[in-house]
């Protein structure tokens, strides 16, 4: 029966496959990784049908792990995490396929690490024990650190250590806050446990300590998102990482931050998180992220850096949607998390494909290539439009929902955020024009090969996703709605 074991299987299978790849011959590595990640995808797809939207947390499984401290292996999904899990299993096979030509050295290690990273990412989204969550949160750091540091660009060592230290700084303070919660709740109830449900049910009012705890959680998640002043690691890491690393970094890892807010920071400390001063600061930071990210993206000469800054802007929308706390805005935030994974993932794939052809990431190195590579140019155009939020693409649905929802509670912020959409059109269309339209004036660009079958196989699923969510998002929204509603209902009254 397809039931409780599935999440455990999703966690265990990539680890097992990683070991097999490590032991297998080098030339088989990428094929093994592709098949393993396709199996993973196949395992996860039935979740779509078995998931019961109204049932809340489901498919849970629990084993005692370290009983002395009340630590258990507990996993489960709800409408918030389901699509993040599916997004992960969807992006991993594409990342493997997209790395076929890009990765040429130490392939075994690369693909094995990619699969270990998969376990870490899924683990963060399904963990229902704070210890397990923390372990998974840190575990995915190591593979990413190696992926950036070994297979990255010229400045990879700097980018890798910056990524590692920033994330670790936030997560270790979160660790202290987790322990503080554990001790406080344990002292209050007499039952010391890291179980999410237990802590959530008994956290109650914490007094001034809640401010410290929230601060620690906020720092960890805000660095990951990244919220405006904590974003400086992101351009370095995204630009230096190999294509697969950038795709997963933007597509999945950033969502861990916003997921953390939805799952932990807000439900645990609603009184602090929705305190008027905190709300004002976070809404302001989100707006700065949206506008500043867009404006900085506009002047980037490097295509990957442009996409990286556009991520700062998109995640600003998500933060805004979460803090606006209306049903539309939260659903919109959840949807933008998925959309950003698909669209930005596709953009990074395309940037990687351009780099493989020209060995340059500079926008100025291209120009007029629509005539040479019409297929690539067409895909790039569609993906850029979806990232801007053109109606009919996925980007529109998510951002529209956030703007409607936000308008009800923070009208000024909604108006300002709308400017961000225009800025996005300016930088992406500008880049698009300079890359594929302008006159074809560079000699080297005249003989670029168009998309191969393999590259099409990477891009077509993403295009399907873009159009599908753009035209008919209802099945996804239906599955998200009960969890989004429950989230709002649990957070809002406690804030007063």
């Amino acid at each position, binding site marked *: 029966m397809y039931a409780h074991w599935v999440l455990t299987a999703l966690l265990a299978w990539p680890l097992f496959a990683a070991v097999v790849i490590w032991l297998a011959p080098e030339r088989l590595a990428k094929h093994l990784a592709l098949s393993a990640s396709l199996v993973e995808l196949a395992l996860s797809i039935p979740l779509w049908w078995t998931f019961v939207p109204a049932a809340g947390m489901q498919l849970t499984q629990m084993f005692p792990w370290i009983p*002395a401290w009340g630590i258990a292996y507990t996993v489960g999904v709800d409408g918030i995490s389901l699509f993040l899990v599916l997004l992960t299993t969807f992006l991993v096979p594409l990342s493997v396929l997209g790395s076929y030509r890009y990765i040429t050295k130490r392939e075994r290690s690369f693909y094995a690490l990619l699969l270990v990273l998969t376990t870490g990412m899924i683990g963060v989204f399904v963990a229902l024990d704070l210890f397990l969550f923390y372990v998974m949160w840190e575990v995915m750091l190591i593979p990413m*650190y190696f992926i950036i*540091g070994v297979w990255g660009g010229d400045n990879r060592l700097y980018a890798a250590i910056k990524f590692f230290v920033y994330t670790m*700084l936030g997560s*270790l*303070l979160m660790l*202290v806050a987790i*322990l503080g919660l554990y001790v406080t709740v344990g002292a209050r109830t007499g039952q010391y446990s890291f179980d999410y449900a237990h802590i959530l049910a008994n956290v109650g009012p914490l007094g001034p300590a809640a401010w410290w705890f929230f601060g*620690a959680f906020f720092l960890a998640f805000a660095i990951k998102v990244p919220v405006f002043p904590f974003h400086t690691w992101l351009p370095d890491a995204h630009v230096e990482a190999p294509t697969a690393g950038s795709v997963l970094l933007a597509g999945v890892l950033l969502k861990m931050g916003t997921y953390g807010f939805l799952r932990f920071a807000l439900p645990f400390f609603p009184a602090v998180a929705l305190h008027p001063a905190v709300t004002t600061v976070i809404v302001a930071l989100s707006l700065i992220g949206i506008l500043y990210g867009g404006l900085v993206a506009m002047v980037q000469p490097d295509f990957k850096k442009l996409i990286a800054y556009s991520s700062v802007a998109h995640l600003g929308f998500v933060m805004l949607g979460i803090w606006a706390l209306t049903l539309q805005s939260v659903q919109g935030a959840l949807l933008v998390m998925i959309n950003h994974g698909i669209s930005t993932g596709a953009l990074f794939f395309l940037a990687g494909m351009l780099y493989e052809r020209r060995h340059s990431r500079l926008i100025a190195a291209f120009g007029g290539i629509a005539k040479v590579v019409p297929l690539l140019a067409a895909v790039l155009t569609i993906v850029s439009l979806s990232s801007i939020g053109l109606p009919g693409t996925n980007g529109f649905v998510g951002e529209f929902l956030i703007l409607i929802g936000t308008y009800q509670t923070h009208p000024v912020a909604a108006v300002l955020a709308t400017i961000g959409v225009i800025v996005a059109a300016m930088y992406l269309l500008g880049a698009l024009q300079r890359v594929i339209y302008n006159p074809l004036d560079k000699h080297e660009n005249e003989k670029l090969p168009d998309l191969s079958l393999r590259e099409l196989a990477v891009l077509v699923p993403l295009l399907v996703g873009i159009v599908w969510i753009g035209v008919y998002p209802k099945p996804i929204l239906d599955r998200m709605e009960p969890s989004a509603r429950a989230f709002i209902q649990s957070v809002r009254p406690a804030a007063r």
Partner: protein
Amino acid sequence: MSLDLSVYADMLRALLPELVLTAWALVLLLVVAWRHHTVRDLRLAGWLTAAALLSTAGAVWWLWWNRAHVDGFSSMIAVDDFRFVSDWIFLGAALLTVLFSVRYLEREQLLAPEFYLLLVFATLGMMLMGGGEDLMVIFLGLELMSIGVYALAGLDRRSPRSAEAALKYFLLGAFASAFLLYGIALLYGATGTTNLSLVGVQVATLDLGHNGLLLAGIALLLVGFGFKVAAVPFHMWAPDVYDGSPTPVAGFMATAVKAAAFAALFRIVGEALAAAGAWREIVTALAIATMIAGNLVALAQRSLKRMLAYSSVAHAGYLLVAVATGSAPGSAAFLFYLVAYSLTTLAAFALLAAKGRGGESDVRIDDLAGLATQRPWLAFALAVCMLSLLGFPGTAGFIGKWYILIAAVGSGRGWLAALLVLTSVVSAGYYLPVIMAMYMKPAPSLESHAGVQFDGFGRLALAVSVAALLFFGVWPNRLLDLSKTGGASFQHAAAVSAVATPAPAPGP
């Protein structure tokens, strides 16, 4: 098994591990006196030492298995789980040191089987420190350990650096011992006894918490122990001494010696000073200074050995956080952390010893470049060690740090825990470059790591250490239970006052 220590036979039983090791030490002394010329003699001494350590561990196990405990009140030697677990840690660290040293001594032409003898005597001293129930026993153990280690530091007679290390260690160590002894004298002056539990009873019943004599004694004791564990600002000797000593000795000093000093400190504050509060503030201040200074100075090191030396200073800071909690979870966290830390540090020093070539202080972090492509397993082992020192999930170092943090937060010192994790982030700045050099930088030449060699036993010891680090990182339950009972096993002043009448307090 209930022991009455006033009965001769029971006293011998309680001391069985120490007696076994002493007997072995005498055997070894005779063997070494006659056979100390060739490599074969050296190996023979090595095997005998390994057998000695293993059989002693067996004796400890026998006591533990029979649930040995003292009936009533123990005056000289404790018979509790804390002693057993810390004995195992000392013996295990010594055994790993022996296994890692066999090849090193041959390669460096240090044909002195006395190495093993000194190691055994030092270990004996440590066991007395971990089990001493009287300040005098602890002091004697400390001297026995220290004198052995002073000589070990200067084992390489041909190297001026080794001689410098030995002299520096000896002078500062003697200085620290004097502080300690004076502190003991003042404690005796204040309470009229040197027995730890009776000191505890006196402090509680006579309300000596603010007695000037006692406070001065506590301060001097802490200075003495501060030197031994290399806490800032008493750490100045540590990097130079580690740097100059033969590498396996440096590993032994960074783990077992430090562990013994900490074990004695835990017992003293847990049994004698529980009612006196003053030491908590001093230890907290030492912990803060040690964590900050140790980590920041380690950042600037380019030599691997000096980096490990400063990292051991930083870890002393983390352990001082556990001391500062002054609670049973703190002692339990100490025992667990010590296992993780000892395994990691010994393995790292062993790799350093294998990489070095006569005067190995010159192994810089950058010299490891490309190790992963040429020696993938060694690089993996060192990477696991670095991650465990960093406290990364999946390794025993993480569980140890988690335990210390729980103890700190549980005793209401959340800010100290926050400082601990912040300084741990700093430590990423010097542990990660090692991984970075091994995995992300190309090797200068194809032969650059050909000289790194391990014999079978070194390899086995390394594999066991790394496997244990990973195992305890994922499945720590057994070790946690052991440290939990060990940490909670001190004899408490309240229980003691019922069975023993304290000596009358001395006049003013």
